[in-house]
């Protein structure tokens, strides 16, 4: 009886902890929905789609809803991983799991915070068009900081795990990763450079409002670095899940590693899309949106796998 009371108290405590960890999501989501309803509607979009003010707000909310679901899943996977990391805090691999969790946390907080700032800056740009270049530049840099921080942090954790298990890249795997990066990098440069005035590197007459040399050194190169870190992180996680001892442990780790592959692939895809197709500062119902939704599905699958993997790993520590 005493034991069952203790168990129920522990369950209650862990539920509170989940709620505590998820609280920032609810605050950010509520603020975001409030901003959609409070900030002035974009006249260009209203005119293009023949919408009234309320219809515009409903459309904006519906277009953003799938991305808000991704925020929820990102926070949920962060919360689940955090609870697993707390559970194994005395183990040798706990530091690496804590670092991976921190990387997911940067993604979970970064995605909605950038959207919050973006909706606010775009709204200012609607009332003062002269502010539009500042808004576009600021949002581009903020969008870069999130994957840069998140992927390099996740990579630090996965590298720690791989290092602890004494795992090294095989020559074929190294070639495979390098090939992926080369293809992504060259295609990214090709699509971005088409929009830059390469005859005058100092000209900011492009959709990014930045001179080409600044665009190359402060946007393109950091993005390629972030993506390379993300790819390495995903690969190291897969490598670890393949070679770590323990049939049951390996099954859970496989889910976690596939989840990281999913969020890195989805994240890279989304950042790719948002740089290659320059930001306009307002919603557009076009093929880019369809691509974005497809990428949300990949991200959703990735976060779901992380959630299931973290739940299974924690269960091993609970029984």
């Amino acid at each position, binding site marked *: 009886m005493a034991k069952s009371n203790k168990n129920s108290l522990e369950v209650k405590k862990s539920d509170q902890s989940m709620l505590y960890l998820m609280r920032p999501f609810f605050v950010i989501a509520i603020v975001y929905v409030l901003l959609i309803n409070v900030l002035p509607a974009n006249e260009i979009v209203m005119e293009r789609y023949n919408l009234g003010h309320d219809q515009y707000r409903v459309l904006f909310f519906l277009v953003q809803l799938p991305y808000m679901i991704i925020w929820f899943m990102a926070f949920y996977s962060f919360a689940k991983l955090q609870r697993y990391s707390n559970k*194994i805090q005395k*183990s*040798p*691999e706990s530091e690496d799991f804590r670092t991976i969790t921190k990387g997911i946390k940067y993604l979970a907080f970064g995605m909605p915070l950038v959207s919050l700032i973006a909706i606010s800056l775009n709204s200012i740009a609607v009332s003062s068009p002269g502010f539009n270049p500042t808004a576009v530049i600021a949002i581009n840099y903020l969008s870069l900081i999130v994957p840069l921080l998140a992927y390099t942090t996740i990579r630090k954790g996965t590298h720690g795990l791989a290092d602890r298990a004494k795992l090294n890249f095989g020559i074929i795997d190294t070639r495979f990763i390098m090939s992926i990066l080369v293809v992504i990098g060259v295609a990214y440069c090709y699509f971005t450079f088409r929009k830059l005035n390469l005859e005058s590197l100092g000209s900011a007459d492009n959709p990014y409002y930045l001179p080409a040399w600044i665009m190359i050194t402060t946007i393109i190169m950091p993005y390629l670095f972030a993506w390379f870190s993300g790819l390495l992180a995903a690969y190291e996680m897969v490598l670890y899940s393949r070679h*770590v*001892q*323990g*049939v*049951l*442990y*390996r*099954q859970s780790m496989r889910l976690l590693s596939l989840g990281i592959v999913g969020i890195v692939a989805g994240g890279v895809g989304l950042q790719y899309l948002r740089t290659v197709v320059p930001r306009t500062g307002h919603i557009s119902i076009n093929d880019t949106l369809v691509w974005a939704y497809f990428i949300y599905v990949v991200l959703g699958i990735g976060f779901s796998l992380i959630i299931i993997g973290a739940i*299974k*790993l924690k*269960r*091993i*520590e609970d*029984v």
Partner: protein
Amino acid sequence: MNSQSNAMLYDKVLKITNVYLGPAADRFMSRQIQNHLNKEPNELTEKDLVSLIVWIKVSVSLLTEDSGIVDEYITKLNELANAKTPTKS
């Protein structure tokens, strides 16, 4: 001497558990022994093995629906429990 053989027994159980739970094996075994036998891992004796195996079966069954894995794990532990410990002359 006794505590040394107890520790050796724990290591043998741990070695088998490692195949199924990898890095989580030591924590899992410690929990089973502390929670169900009210002992420390280095106090594990051959007499405890039978009841420990019962608890391990219950716990591992909660982790997987694959009865093949559970049966294989429990068979290995039973083999260890049934094996005669060689004595040094």
